[in-house]
């Protein structure tokens, strides 16, 4: 019997394959990309331009724009900070208020609005083992408070790691380790949670270069950021994710023909924890939504 299975698996593994192919891209002129965030921590705006498909250099925010944030009875021009190479101000948002971002850049006018939802304080974070098909997976579990359980709320989370592993000595990581969006449908009243499947034990042991960005290494510092966002930003991020495989550009809440988004959001952050295999808890200790409702 096992020989038959091996034969079938052999057929499948021999036949399916991946290869890199040549592609002739039809390039377009650079498009303005705006990332605007007004949060309880301050205001941060980035203005960049799209780059060639074949360009491997990440762009920094461009100076020269007039950036204004209006809301809660105030209006503030956000200055360009040459050190961080972003438009930054200590202007903080207030929950429930609607803010307007206007950007005048290279004779074009862009603007968008967003309403700031309440913050979702993070209650706990921990690593767990989870076994499926004989393989142990590392899962990062987060619990938080849902500030308005009776309404549909939207969240954007980002998990970062700071690593000093030799693999990344010459290649500092700019992108998050994981990110996604979710809403509070179906969560126990007043609670939010996320299970982030990080990696399998086997992949970590094999340590192949293609998987380095997916592998957490002993001693990595892990942080988790949870942002309460409004629906328009949630739809931007959802369409940004789903459109990448489907060949569609995201919906944006900014006018003027640019790419990007403007969000007024409440940010909460977890304590930093250091990833150690010895600290990963067994599956039996995890807190189920079924037991806390």
């Amino acid at each position, binding site marked *: 019997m096992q020989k038959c299975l091996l034969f079938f698996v052999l057929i499948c593994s021999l036949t399916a394959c*991946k290869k890199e192919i040549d592609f002739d891209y039809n390039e377009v002129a650079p498009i303005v990309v705006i990332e605007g965030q007004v949060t309880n921590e301050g205001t941060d705006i980035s203005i960049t331009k799209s780059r060639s498909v074949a360009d491997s250099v990440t762009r920094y925010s461009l100076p020269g724009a007039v950036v204004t944030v209006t809301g809660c009875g105030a209006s503030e021009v956000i200055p360009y900070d040459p050190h961080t190479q972003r438009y930054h101000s200590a202007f903080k948002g207030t929950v429930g208020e609607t803010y307007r971002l206007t950007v005048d850049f290279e004779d074009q006018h862009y603007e968008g609005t967003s309403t700031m939802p309440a913050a979702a304080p993070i209650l706990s974070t921990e690593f767990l083992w989870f076994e499926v098909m004989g393989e142990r997976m590392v899962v990062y579990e987060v619990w938080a408070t849902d500030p308005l359980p009776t309404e549909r709320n939207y969240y954007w989370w980002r998990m970062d790691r700071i690593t000093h592993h030799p693999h990344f000595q010459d290649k500092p990581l700019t992108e998050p380790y994981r990110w996604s969006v979710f809403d509070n449908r179906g969560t126990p009243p007043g609670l939010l949670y996320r299970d982030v499947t990080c990696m399998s034990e086997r992949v970590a042991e094999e340590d192949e270069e293609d998987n380095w960005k997916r592998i957490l290494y002993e001693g990595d510092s892990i942080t988790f950021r949870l942002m309460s966002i409004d629906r328009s930003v949630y739809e931007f991020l959802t369409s940004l994710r789903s459109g*990448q495989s489907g060949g569609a550009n995201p919906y944006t809440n900014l006018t003027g023909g640019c790419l990007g988004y403007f969000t007024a959001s409440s940010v909460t952050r977890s304590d930093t924890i250091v990833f150690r295999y010895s600290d990963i808890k067994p599956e039996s200790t995890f807190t189920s939504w079924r037991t806390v409702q």
Partner: protein
Amino acid sequence: MTKRLLLPLVFLHMLWNADVCAQTEDTDPVLTDSLQEVTITSHSVQKRVEDVQIGVEKIEVSTLAKMPSLLGEKDILKSIQLLPGIKSENEASGGYQVRGGKSSQNLILLDGATIYNAGHLMGLFSTFNDDALMSASLYKGLLPAQLGGGTASVLELGTRSGNLSNYHYGLTVGLLSAKAVVEGPIQKGRSSFLVAGRRSYLDLFLKATKKYRDNTLYFYDINTRLNFRLSDRDLLSLSLFRGHDNTKLEDVLGMEWGNTKATASWLHTFSDRHDANTHLIYSDFNSDTGIDMLNTYYTLRGYIRHATLHHQQTLSTGHHQLCYGLESTYLRLMSGEWNINLLHQRERRQAWTNALWLNDNWQLNKHWQLSAGLRLRTFSALGGSPYYLLNGRGDIVETINPRGIIKTYADLEPRVSLKWTITPQHILKAGYSRTSQDIHAISGMSMSLPFDRYTMTSNIVKPEQADQVSLGWFGITKGGAYDWSIEGYYKNIRNVYDYRDGKTFYSEIEIERLLLGGKGRAYGLEFCFHKNKGPITGWVSYTLAWSENKVEGISGGRWYTASNDRRHDLAIVGMWQLSPSWDISAVWHYNTGQALTAPSAKYDIDGITFYYYNERNGYRAPANHRLDLSANYTKKGRRTTRIWSFGIYNAYNRKNPFTIRFKNDDKSPTGTIAEQTSLFGIIPSVSFTLKH
């Protein structure tokens, strides 16, 4: 490369030069008449050419057994993709696209019952067991008035009747599945039965391993048909079908889907010129998927259920053959019932559809024949569950939940097909059809899946409607050794629905909030050349086609190339009866690569690189082509026949594109990697069949 091109040319040469050898099959004319169809024989070649209806393909089930197939699984849905105007969604899918339509615009009828997602293993193999099939006809959007419900095509399949005189059985064991068929008389000469079943056994191998024993992976299908000759004028038949797939990854992930249908048919013959056919039909398609992993608990269930009464009479008078009837269907459709952890939501609706039709097949004179008809269809969305009024963003403005009828759509659908017999060897045909469809599949991908969400026409969603015109020249040599056809078509389609930007199938339970409507058009030319007689038979088909869509918010609201647009499609099919024991066959299939959307720039959001897309479907994937071969060795004994079937799928190991993914790689000099995934290289197969 030269060898690859030579192979199809060699087959073309063999087709042209082979000798004559007729093929016949034993059938029961009375019983097969219940489906107004006969098994295709050499005589049917003349019938195919002379049929007044344009845009119809008759599929010979006996030919199917000889054709090469993936892992030796004979597959009617893969075979029809070798006919002109019909294309596969992709290599792994049994979903097919007809004249620029999507696979969800095809109506598949098994004994009159609607079958959805007719594929096992996510569409890798069709759900139809060739042992149980008698006949198949595919209407490529141009329909007689008695058919309706699919805007791209209607595929009519009939279950075979059991033998009235003798008992027979057959058993086939292949690499993936085993199947068995038993048939014979219940009461000799008056009633018969047929039972055919198939089951995969990959799960048995899984059970034998320690690592995978807790996983489930199987499919099965079973066909049953009972025939009763009640009197010289009355024939009653009952047919049942169930196809089911079950895949479970331990207790973490589960996927089940399938179709169940039952048909009771009563054929009453008033006279040689007048008969009536009445069907009572029930069908149920359901899908159920779920994931339960730590704190992630999502399930999604859906179904489409039909209960139908169908009555039709055929009356022949002089030069007229009148066909008239009615159909009434009660529909229940659950677009989704899900659990998202604690949240349980469901959207379930019901509707009542009716159709009246009259079609006249009129032999005007020796040269001219006209088939003209009208179909009056109504669709009534029924209350008892919530309906909505939405604003431009898809938000609910008002919820209504009245009893009775919410909204009724009524349409008159004209159907015309005209034939001009210039000489017995040369025929011109022209046709026009309007068709409507009220069940809409909403798929987020370019291929159909069992877990696509479905919805019905409602106060918001309008019936999908297609108008098609076609013109063709059909020719046949004297004696019918060769025949050929050239057909051109133009099709317009309205109210095609897709997801709004930023919405996916689970964004809202109210599916209408996720949708945007658009329109499409398709046009093309189809060429087909058949060789029908001799030890070598087969055909060459070529399609030149265009397919375009227009949806507000995509490509600036301009017409853009549809994802199923394939400019060229060529199939060469050859079957060679080497000796009474050996037959071999080969299929070479080529088509232009799928239209795809590739990036035109990249940009960064929150430190992550994303792609910007400027042209929807503005690029082409590499072309697909492959050669499949098969050989059958048949040894006939006194009471039993043994058949060994050998096959090679993708004989020259072509790596055809299944997906093309663009990956940002800031380390590489190109900055972006275009990565092609191919599914199947060369795959050998063997199966053994025992027939009694």
